[in-house]
């Protein structure tokens, strides 16, 4: 199994740094970490890079996380793990993104070890 390539999508540079730090703190087999500040930029990355998992916020300007997930589904991308990392933990929002193939939903604020648990849950072979 090659190292897991992850795309982090959040309009806050601080939050991207926090998620990145949490990912690096894991002892998992992690490859490239890509960043995007909204859904539109995330699609640009997905067009040009091979990505195994996307961790996306919901509330972002230009193209939000739900719109990004809808576009990924519309394009028929199936080999991508989709995880939401958001402050919006409402049941209605969870139901909405579950229908878009999201496999895990992480509430902000989160404990760093949650990132590790979710990555293992979504990609068991990532354990070294």
């Amino acid at each position, binding site marked *: 199994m090659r190292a897991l390539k992850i795309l982090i999508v959040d*309009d*806050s*540079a*601080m*939050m991207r*740094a*926090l998620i990145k730090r949490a990912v690096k703190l894991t002892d998992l087999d992690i490859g490239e970490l890509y960043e995007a500040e909204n859904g539109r930029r995330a699609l640009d990355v997905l067009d040009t890079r091979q990505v195994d998992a996307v961790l996306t916020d919901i*509330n972002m*300007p230009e193209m939000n996380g739900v719109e990004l997930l809808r576009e990924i589904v519309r394009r028929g991308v199936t080999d991508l793990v989709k995880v939401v990392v*958001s*402050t*919006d*933990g*409402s*049941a*209605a*929002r969870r139901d*909405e993104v579950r229908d878009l193939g999201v496999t895990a939903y992480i*509430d*902000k*604020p*989160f*404990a760093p070890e949650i990132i590790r648990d979710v990555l293992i849950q979504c990609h068991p072979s990532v354990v070294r």
Partner: protein
Amino acid sequence: MSLSSVIRASSADLSGLVGAFGAVAERSFFAFAEPADSVASETAMTEWLGGEPYVATVSFRGPRSGAVSIVVPETLARELTSAFLGLDFESEAEVEETAVCDLVGEMANMATGSWLSSLEAEQVFELAHPEVSRAQGNSERGPWAVVLVNGTPTGLCCEFTGGRS
């Protein structure tokens, strides 16, 4: 005459917001948070009104609409940003203003979203992008709840607009 009216948050609402903000400060920004007593709160208001703290406001729409604001004194905002970025706060290294604003805005965003989710778990709220500015304290807003973050008074306020939809 304006058709919308401002409704100040109840003490129960503020208490929930304080809890959400404390969790954000501790889990995401590695700070220690505790509610302030009335003396500390009064002192904080005086300092904010005389200073130029960072003020971050997040507007929200949903079954209830309104806005949450947080007031973070400059020294604390820079200290938290330095710690977050792994810099030595005592050193001469200057923390970029955009990084400080981003951090304060994200604190407000996370506290607001987390609080609203606990308030109305079955409902969806739309949150606006955080607006961050350097402003003198506004004594007309409030009531303010005060939380000590690493011992420094930090303010929280919520106002609802109109009634429930």
